[in-house]
């Protein structure tokens, strides 16, 4: 986390700089099936973040050394577009995107019924078009909707959400300033129906009580986003289009 102390992140009236309450998340909207070339796809707009996910497969897993005899492997690529941030990002993989891709893949492998597709591969491509803190979570949410859109069986959807700490106060869903100058960030991937957690990262400083409150906020937000995800999938298939 960035330097704390020099930037005011909570207003005198107790609200946050953008006017949100402590446990209020940024607006989320989701659209399923937006990419015609993909087997499944979704776009998630979470605050100012825009994440697009495409799913291809299940397909033959190659090279063969990545094959698993008893299940499918999920191959995730999280990538930020060069124009997605304030300063241009040089195209290509970096350490950050490799790590996020790895843990996201493992989270998705925890919810997809991978044992149904031995020796195969499911490709999940996450592209961040606009980044304002919280892109890995928006990416996970987009990936889950895209997997469902592709008709791939899952135990549950998975929702990416984060809480954190600014000015010694736990808040839900950090925005850019809060992420840069706050004290902690706790992004998780929640299975809303089973109440399990499949993705977990954290950095900063949280007391056990603060952790519990942050997690409580995360579960509350996950339930809200879950409704939006289900609604997007229903719209995709009830509308009669495609």
């Amino acid at each position, binding site marked *: 986390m960035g330097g704390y102390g020099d930037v005011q992140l909570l207003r005198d009236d107790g609200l946050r700089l953008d006017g949100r309450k402590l446990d209020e998340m940024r607006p989320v909207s989701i659209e399923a099936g937006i990419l015609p070339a993909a087997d499944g796809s979704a776009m998630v707009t979470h605050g100012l973040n825009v994440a697009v996910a495409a799913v291809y497969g299940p397909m033959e897993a190659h090279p063969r050394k990545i094959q698993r005899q008893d299940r499918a492997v999920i191959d995730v690529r999280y990538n930020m577009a060069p*124009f997605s941030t304030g300063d241009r990002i040089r195209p290509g993989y970096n350490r950050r995107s490799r790590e996020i891709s790895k843990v996201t893949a493992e989270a998705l492998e925890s919810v997809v019924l991978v044992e149904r597709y031995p020796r195969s591969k499911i490709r999940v491509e996450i592209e961040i078009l606009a980044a304002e803190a919280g892109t890995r979570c928006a990416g996970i949410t987009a990936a889950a909707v895209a997997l469902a859109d592709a008709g791939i069986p899952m135990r549950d959807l998975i929702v990416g959400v984060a809480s954190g700490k600014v000015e010694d106060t736990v808040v839900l869903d950090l925005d850019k300033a809060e992420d840069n100058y706050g004290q902690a960030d706790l992004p998780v991937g929640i299975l809303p129906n089973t109440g399990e957690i499949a993705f977990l990262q954290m950095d900063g400083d949280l007391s056990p009580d603060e952790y519990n409150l942050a997690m409580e906020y995360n579960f509350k937000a996950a339930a809200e986003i879950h409704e939006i995800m289900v609604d997007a999938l229903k719209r995709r298939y009830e509308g009669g289009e495609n």
Partner: protein
Amino acid sequence: MVELVPTLLRQELARLAEADQRLDGRGQWEGRDVSLEVDCLYNAEGSAKVVMGKTIVYAGVKFELRTPWPDRPTQGSLMCGAELRPVAHRKYEPGPPSPESIELGRVVDRGIRESGCIDMESLCIVPGEKVWGVMIDIHVLSDGGNIFDACGLAAIAALRTAIVPAERFDVGEDYKLKVNGTPIMSSFTRVGGRYIYDPSEEEELGGDERIHITLGDEGHLHSLQKGLRGVFTPAEFAEIFEVAHQRCADLRTLVANQEGN
């Protein structure tokens, strides 16, 4: 999509061409509907989204301060690159930029650069010390055929809406980038023995060589490219050049309308 499919597809495309028809019912020189949205990406200084049939492309413009090249101390620079990432189609593999994506970026780059729509001198802040580097990044999200035209259109539309972020770099006030002209690319693929405009994914799969023509506002040629295996005659070129000329005018109007001028 191994070789068997294109063989059958080629036969079908040849049969249709014989009857002056196309798979999706379009005429030989008829393009798909184009939808253009500008200023649609939050962190880009200029941006555009183009949808043509099943093809979806985004372009974003970013600026950076740099030292000018020693032999051109009063000129800024322009760079345009395209990424054909695996998100866009089953056929694209992860890895370093493929020859296809490099060709795509460079053809779009040439059309914009050579049209002279950006005056490189206007990108100079302090001669010999500080100039703007303008970077257009094109992101193909869905390849449904003819990504060249979609990328060319997205790139120039994004550029034409770009705001130079001078305040953020502490070199004065933000201002609109001056762009003199709207170069437009038109692409043709030989399908069933004849050229067609704006090939779909199936037409590319079962077609032969392609030709890309970028024309400026005055109708001058600014970039040409022939790709893939095949040959063409001067008479064939004359015919598609005429079509390119007409289609350019429509697309230029579309860009102007989106900008609101």
